[in-house]
């Protein structure tokens, strides 16, 4: 594993950028999905206020947030075409389900916001939006779990010589991928609750989301434990990466510290700190997964090096990303500032 780190080159840098794009997606788009979960679970006397806050927080940004996923996919198939091909073949079913979720979530959301429909119609769109918001991240997590467990690569080696179920169903319909799916969902819901607690302007509403954030922090803890428990059997290689590699302990400790900070900050109502810690916790979990399967993209057979596109492509890609980022970062900051600002510029 140490030897692998000695050979950080262009392919590894691009792989890192893909994880970075996923990180962007998880922190922004992920929280939008989490918002949908809280829409589904909205209860109590302030049910309508909760749903309104969720809708108004998501509306200006969800389309931009969603593009992180597209960037990750595009970088993936450009830089590691052979790995993308393998994933596309073996994970067809969960990814297609995820796509249905993406379509239903996005369209139901705008139909509800802009449609001039009746209250009943809006309720129905709201429900579609909320249910799709819960299914999509779960299936995304299942797909990631299947890759991490090694089952995807294994199934890819048996396309054509094993049964349909063996190759296209059993790899993902297993305890470890399902645990990762549940963990993903819990993490997104957790992030969303923390963000919403900050966005709320009324104290009672803020308390609603603070309580939800604390509850989902517990869910995250439970599902993380479940993921580890199932990993012993379902993803031994990941387990080795998580436990034995030299950076593992540092990463584990950092993740744990972030988790505890988030909970303490929520408890003591220091919301800005809670948001920072929650974002750090989620990001560290993502990077922990990526490093645990390093140097493989689809472990244990398809490595970053072996599936990388030729150097010309990677070099041009890096240039493209640099130019893109130069435009993107200030634009994104502008959008988020605008979305958070309450003040109205006087119309002329």
């Amino acid at each position, binding site marked *: 594993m140490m030897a692998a780190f000695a050979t950080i080159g262009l392919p590894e840098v691009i792989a890192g950028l893909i994880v970075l794009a996923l990180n962007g997606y998880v922190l922004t788009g992920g929280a939008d999905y989490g918002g949908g979960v809280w829409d589904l679970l909205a209860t109590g006397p302030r049910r309508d206020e909760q749903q309104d806050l969720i809708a108004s927080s998501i509306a*200006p940004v969800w*389309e*931009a947030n*969603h*593009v992180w*996923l*597209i*960037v990750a*996919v*595009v*970088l993936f*198939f*450009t830089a590691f*075409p052979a790995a993308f*091909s*393998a*994933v*596309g*073949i073996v994970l*067809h079913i969960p990814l*297609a389900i*995820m*796509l249905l979720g*993406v*379509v239903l*979530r*996005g*369209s139901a*959301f*705008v*139909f509800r*916001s*802009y*449609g*001039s429909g009746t209250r009943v119609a809006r309720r129905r769109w709201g429900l579609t939006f909320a249910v799709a918001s819960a299914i999509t991240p779960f299936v995304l997590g299942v797909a990631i779990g299947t890759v991490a467990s090694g089952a995807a690569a294994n199934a890819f080696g048996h*396309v*054509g010589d094993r049964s*349909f179920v063996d190759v*296209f169903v059993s790899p993902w319909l297993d305890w470890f991928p399902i645990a990762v799916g549940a963990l993903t969902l819990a993490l997104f819901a957790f992030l969303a609750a923390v963000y919403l607690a900050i966005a709320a302007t009324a104290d009672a509403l803020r308390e609603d989301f603070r309580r939800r954030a604390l509850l989902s922090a517990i869910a995250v803890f439970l599902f993380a434990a479940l993921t580890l428990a199932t990993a012993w059997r379902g993803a031994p290689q990941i387990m080795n990466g998580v436990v034995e590699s030299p950076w593992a302990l540092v990463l584990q400790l950092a993740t744990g510290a972030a988790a505890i900070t988030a909970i303490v900050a929520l408890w003591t109502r220091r919301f800005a700190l809670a948001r920072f810690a929650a974002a750090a916790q989620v990001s560290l979990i993502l990077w922990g997964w990526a490093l645990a399967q390093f140097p493989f993209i689809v472990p244990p057979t398809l490595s970053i090096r072996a599936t990388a*596109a*030729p150097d*010309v*492509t990677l070099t*041009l*890609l890096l240039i*493209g990303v640099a130019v*893109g980022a130069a*435009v*993107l970062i200030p*634009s*994104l900051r*502008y*959008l988020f500032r*605008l*979305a958070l*600002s309450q*003040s109205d*510029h*006087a119309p*002329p």
Partner: protein
Amino acid sequence: MSNLLAARTQMALSLGFHIVFAEIGIAMPLMMVLAEWRWRRTGDDTYRQLAQGWAKGTAILFAVGAVSGTVLSFELGLLWPRFMQFAGPIVGLPFSLEGFAFFTEAIFLGVYLYGWTKISPRAHLAAGAIVAVSGAASAIFVIMVNAWMNTPTGLTMSGGQIVRIDPIAGALNPSTLQQALHMLLAAYAATGLAVAGIHAGMLLKKSAAPFHRAALTLALVVGAPAAILQPLSGDLSARTVALWQPIKLAALEGQFDTERGAPLRIGGWPDVAAEHTRYAIEIPRGLSLLAFHDPDAEVRGLQAFDRDVWPPVLPVHFGFQIMVGLGTIMAVVSIWALVTLVRKREITGRALLRALAVVTPFGYIATEAGWTVTEVGRQPWTVQGVLRTADAVTPMPGLVVPMVVFALVYLGLAAIVVVLIRAMVRETA
């Protein structure tokens, strides 16, 4: 239904669905910015209502475009993994740039829609302009990929394996310029005339509506010039096809034998078994003249090629006839409308309004027909001469199931969008 056919059908449905929203996403932002600009310049509140109404419509349509586009990005891998494995390193670059163009587009659409009162008028207008420009840019990038599939350059093969690639040469292949131009004009023509047609229809019912009059004029400013230029750009595309994809040209013209001074066929029924196109109106030497700018040029017919590389002739020929027929009508109506507009300063006369109302869907139908020509006309290749569609498809069995599911979802979405947009237009009436 075979697996390959199911995959092709699903791809065709997804792209055929997406392209309508993509064209709207390219042209609507331009129109809404023009309306806002008029409002800021003249202070006429009609234009503010128009800009905000169009922005609201754009928000719905853009979201459907975004989700259907996301499906496409994944579908490339889910349906054609071997194409992506083969082509990813070459076409990935324009796809990545497209990704950044989407980002800019989505960010500034958010700024535009939610910034009406939060930022200065100038910043707001600029945000709209950025949306319009990045929409056009994303179309150009994705067309680079498709143009490469038609005329692949930038790869050196040896024994069926790629030995060297040049992604920049691939992006700037011989079809890129023509296809990008034709696609952008198609987007402005189709959407401009569709919006013009909807408002012309409202004016037929209620002629004294300043809102619809303003909308009609602005939509024509965007749509009519594009529709008039489109046949010229189509001629450019046809000549490129003649040069680089002679089989596609033969199929779209229904040309079976190789001949000098080949006629241009209007209509007709290509009888593939008899290898002859019946019932067409033939303009002598027309095809040689149009395709090669020489009335005596030799046009190679389908018979000059092995049957096993013929595309399905019927859909390609009909697609071409439909596109050119509708394109001609759109150009004529556009000239009529522009002349009226210049002469009388506004659109008058029920005959013209009625013609505009009839033309409403033509641009989108022509677009679907044109894509049928391009994509079906390339069969049996996914990458012309290099990778067969049958070799590109995923080995996963049972592709009929996702095909049917996605078809139903698209059908449902299309129905809902139509209902919502109709309600929106009625509301403003």
